């Protein structure tokens, strides 16, 4: 089967593997009806909660990190240094918030009578799908990007393969490249299994309960909603689902902040760069392209559309995330996986910019273990010639060095301007004739006004002609 033959059958394969007709959501022009797509599944938030609860998922502890908050406060001006709380999602079945997403896909697959499920993921989602499939008596195949061309596997991804196999799944391990999608389509066509996509409405609605629980928990404890919720951002589903859940609970003024590890300079499809990164997810290599072009995913219209909800986007470097992972262990007694702590590193820096009575919620943690432990990742990096330095983390060069803060006072983040993200998004439409309905759609997609969209388009065209 040639690459092109399979890719040409993409639409039909996807349709058979989700039994969702995306055409009915399309509007004239560039847009589609996002809310109609999200409600088309027929599940309410209460249904989702009940399904998750049956599977030992959700209602995870929300823990105030008092010592870590005090540590950040030491470097803030008088009266500043917000309280940091952490939603301990590692307590979910399979060890991460991804179980919330998998629960809904598996429930739907079972309901529709599929014999098995397939998911394309090198991350925690694989273990989540495998665990839930096991509980539902469904077969499961996880397709991973795992090895470089010399056969060296990323330790974090190898650990996830092990976890998937522990739950009885078949793990197809591939070398670096976007042709993973080609192999994924072949497997869907061959097995007729359900596509447990991270980007279907099922994959997103499962996270709404996370945002909902955060709002409810803080309301109960503090009699108000959190001021800020920080979400580690890669494919955008985590932020989208959490924000939707917060809004459903009434927390409409809570600031929604995206956090990614800054891997600027490393190419995500590069065989050589693959094993030079210490984070396999939660980084800019996914976070920025998926935010600025959500429909690059494995479904016709992605349900993960983070720019609809995002108020700020902050970047932290690899060394800072490892530093905060160590601090979480030695100050709070919580040993967790480094990738899940990306948002915690950003919280440490952002807390210093907010008054001390304000509340920041970091909305996830993940399990840790062999391979996906910070020491495993740092030692792997050092074996591959990455220099380990104590110094100013903002000077880190991904793929060349990892710079750990020489003091927590140096743990600072970088902001990405929201308008630069919006402009990247709009570039996909710069050669297209747009009408009123398109501007209305774009304003919703980019969480701004139609007037502002027009301004950004004009500025973009001016730069182009200059």
């Amino acid at each position, binding site marked *: 089967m*040639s*690459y092109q033959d399979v890719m040409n059958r993409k639409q039909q394969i996807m349709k058979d593997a989700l039994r969702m007709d995306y055409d009915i959501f399309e509007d004239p022009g560039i847009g589609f009806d996002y809310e109609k797509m999200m409600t088309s599944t027929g599940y309410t938030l209460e249904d989702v909660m009940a399904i998750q609860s049956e599977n030992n998922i959700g209602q995870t502890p929300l823990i105030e990190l008092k*010592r870590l908050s*005090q*540590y950040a406060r*030491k470097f803030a001006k008088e009266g500043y240094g917000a309280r940091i709380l952490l939603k301990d999602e590692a307590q979910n079945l399979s060890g991460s918030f991804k179980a919330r997403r998998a629960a809904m896909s598996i429930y739907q697959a079972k309901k529709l009578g599929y014999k*098995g499920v397939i998911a394309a993921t090198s991350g925690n989602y694989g273990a989540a799908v495998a665990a839930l499939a096991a509980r539902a008596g469904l*077969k*499961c195949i996880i397709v991973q990007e795992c*090895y470089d*061309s010399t056969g060296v*596997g990323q*330790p974090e991804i190898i*650990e996830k*393969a*092990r976890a998937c*196999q522990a739950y009885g799944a*078949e*793990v*197809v*391990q*591939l*070398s*670096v*490249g*976007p*042709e993973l999608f*080609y*192999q994924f389509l072949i497997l869907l066509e*061959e*097995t007729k299994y359900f596509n447990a996509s991270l980007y279907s409405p099922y994959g997103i609605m499962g996270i709404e309960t996370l945002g909902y629980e955060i709002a409810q928990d803080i309301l109960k404890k503090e009699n108000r909603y959190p001021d800020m919720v920080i979400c580690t951002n890669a494919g955008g589903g985590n932020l989208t689902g959490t924000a939707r859940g917060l809004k459903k609970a009434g927390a409409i003024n809570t600031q929604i902040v995206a956090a990614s590890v800054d891997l600027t300079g490393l*190419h995500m*499809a*590069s*065989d*050589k760069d693959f094993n030079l990164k210490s984070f396999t997810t939660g980084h800019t290599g996914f976070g920025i392209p998926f935010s600025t072009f959500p429909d690059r995913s494995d479904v016709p219209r992605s349900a993960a559309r983070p720019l609809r909800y995002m108020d700020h986007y902050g970047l932290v470097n690899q060394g800072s995330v*490892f*530093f905060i992972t*160590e*601090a979480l262990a*030695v*100050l709070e007694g919580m040993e967790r996986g480094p990738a899940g702590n990306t948002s915690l590193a950003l919280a440490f820096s952002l807390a210093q910019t907010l008054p001390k009575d304000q509340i920041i919620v970091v909305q996830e943690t993940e399990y840790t273990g*062999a*391979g996906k*432990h*910070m*020491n*495993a990742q*740092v*030692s*792997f990096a*050092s074996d591959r010639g990455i220099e*380990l*330095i*104590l110094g100013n983390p903002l000077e880190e060069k991904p793929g060349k060095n990892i710079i*750990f*803060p*020489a*003091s*927590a006072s140096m743990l600072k983040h970088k902001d990405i301007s929201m308008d630069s993200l919006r402009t990247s998004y709009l570039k996909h439409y710069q050669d297209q004739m747009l009408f009123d309905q398109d501007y209305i759609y774009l304003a919703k997609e980019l969480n701004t006004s139609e007037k502002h969209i027009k301004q950004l388009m004009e500025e973009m065209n001016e730069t182009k002609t200059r």
Partner: protein
Amino acid sequence: MIEAKTYVEIYRIILPAQERSSNLPVDTKRVPFEMRLRGKLLHAAELGDRVEIETATNRIESGILVAVNPFYQHHFGHYVLTMTQIRDIILDETEDLL
């Protein structure tokens, strides 16, 4: 001779370099797109033979037999001095906390 039903790992080139997607960085474009997969050997064979296996979902897949009774060898990494140094920094800077 490796007996049938033995747990093994196979390797297969899915797309040779020249058949890969056109939109790739040069270093990726010049190597093949490969797969590794584990399962039970269908017929007795030797390492390096082209064989068939039955996977965990009862599919039959073929490839070169590269490992017998494969197991995971990932770990927590070797000792890294920098990790001790950041711990010391954190403990030192938080000594006065309540």
